[in-house]
């Protein structure tokens, strides 16, 4: 009964956040404008100079773009919560007899829906520039599922940080500095084995690499001509991605909840 109530409360909050996507469509436009620009830049500017054995660079690129896009999408969780704190909305929520988990569950859920929309737009963009799915529909769905699941787990980390810094501006700047390196020092836009040694190790163990490779394999965007990876997470990218999801949730769900209970406007 208590769980049902908590889910109901969470859905009320999620609905509130989703209304924002509807009322402020610019948000969706701009959260997809940047990745679309990346697709175009990489496909037409850098793409010509990046050699990927056995396939066109655009086929290789899209999984990396998807991973980067959903991570940026997940940052909305943090900036949204920080904004709610500064506006006093969290104070109001916390004074209501609603489930304590509802604000975070509602927030991460609505951001998941947002990310699902974004990934559909990005897949269409990919298809336009020449990316193709070479696997079964089920595998393709699994690829989307892993990307979204990872973004969802990452949302909880963003929730924690957003509640911690309490300022949407600070959060946005901080997340930018953080997300660029983790999505670039990976196999997202280049093959990780081509990186200099220290960066290569970071890239190989970077959760973003596992997720990107999982999506790449499930979409059928790999080629037997590519060197097989010699680290565990990249040999079992699907398993590794799911592992990262579990680890992220185990760490950040409690941290975000803890921080929520003490979050008050300044």
């Amino acid at each position, binding site marked *: 009964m208590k769980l049902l109530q908590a889910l109901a409360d969470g859905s009320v909050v999620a609905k509130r956040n989703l*209304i924002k996507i509807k009322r402020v469509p610019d948000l969706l436009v701009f959260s997809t404008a940047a990745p679309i620009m990346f697709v175009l830049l990489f496909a037409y500017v850098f793409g010509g100079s990046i050699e990927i054995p056995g396939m066109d660079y655009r086929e290789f690129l899209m999984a990396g773009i998807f991973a980067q896009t959903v991570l940026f999408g997940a940052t909305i969780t943090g900036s949204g919560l920080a904004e709610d704190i500064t506006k*006093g*909305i969290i104070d*109001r929520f916390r004074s209501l007899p609603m489930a304590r988990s509802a604000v975070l569950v509602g927030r991460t859920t609505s951001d998941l829906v947002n990310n699902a929309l974004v990934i559909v737009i990005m897949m269409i963009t990919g298809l336009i520039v020449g990316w193709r799915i070479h696997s079964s529909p089920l595998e393709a769905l699994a690829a989307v599922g892993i990307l979204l699941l990872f973004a969802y787990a990452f949302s909880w980390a963003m929730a924690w940080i957003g509640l911690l810094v309490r300022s949407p501006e600070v959060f946005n700047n901080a997340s930018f500095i953080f997300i660029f390196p983790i999505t670039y020092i990976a196999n997202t836009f280049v093959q990780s084995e081509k990186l200099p040694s220290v960066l290569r190790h970071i890239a190989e163990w970077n959760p973003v690499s596992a997720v990107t490779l999982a999506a790449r394999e499930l979409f059928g965007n790999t080629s037997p001509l590519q060197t097989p990876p010699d680290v565990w997470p990249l040999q079992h990218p699907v398993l590794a991605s799911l592992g990262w999801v579990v680890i992220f949730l185990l760490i950040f769900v409690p941290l975000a909840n803890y921080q929520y209970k003490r979050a008050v406007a300044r």
Partner: protein
Amino acid sequence: MTDAIVAEGLVKRYGSVVALNGLDLTVPEGTIMGLLGPNGAGKTTAVRVFTTLLEPDEGSARVAGLDVRTQADALRTSIGLSGQYAAVDDNLTGFENLDMVGRLYHLGRARSRERARELLERFDLVDAADRPVKGYSGGMRRRLDLAGALVAKPSVLFLDEPTTGLDPRSRLGMWDVIEELVKGGTTLLLTTQYLEEADRLADQIAVIDHGKVIAEGTADQLKDQVGGERLELSVATSAELTTAKSALADLAVGPMESDERQHHLTVPVAGGSAVLMEAIRRMDAESVKVLDVGLRRPTLDDVFLTLTGHHAEGEDEK
């Protein structure tokens, strides 16, 4: 009559800053308590403790008979909070905002909608009900926020600086709304840095400074604490000021205060208008040209100044 809010020895520290320093407060059911103090005095912190947003480091508090620490969940069903930020969602319409709050108070779908309609009607927001709050004026947002606090018909209501930042007209409108709403017997704790507001709305006033209640009583009791009437007199020159001072010396029941630059004299007196007339007669006899004269009761600002050594308004030490 039972007490709706009881606080004993509340202490809350933020690092080295002591926000509450042993706050004691009792608010009887059905009354309006004005918590009056400058910015940074601890008013908002006190409200946050009462509304379970913050746990006190020391001391205890009960609201509607429930402990803020151990019975927080039950307590939240009987309170309403409207903060100084107007915590409404810009992207939702007025109706959607109130409906959401109703759902989160667990009123159920039908009851939430009905209540939202009622409150929009009551707060004169029917025309704006289906417009996003983004386009509302400051006064409308505050009214909507206040409506949000009333959704579940709480028995204890907390309004944290409900008129801060409003223009004078909206402020007057807000006062009418608040006066109207407590007629129904709701207990109200109101924080304010405006003396006028406390004077007009509150039954009892607790003056708070540096996290402590330093005086408590009705507005009149507080004013009496500071002293009775004063005669205030303005003249044109310093010579006249000196003459006035010696002519009025025996009317004073306490030390006179004079401002040499403004040529202004304040004389504590007793005896009402008879003293005023006597003073004017004497000025006339001495041929002192009086620019302004009046008899004045102390204001809450005088209370403040006397109690704390600084004025209530215009300080920003947060």
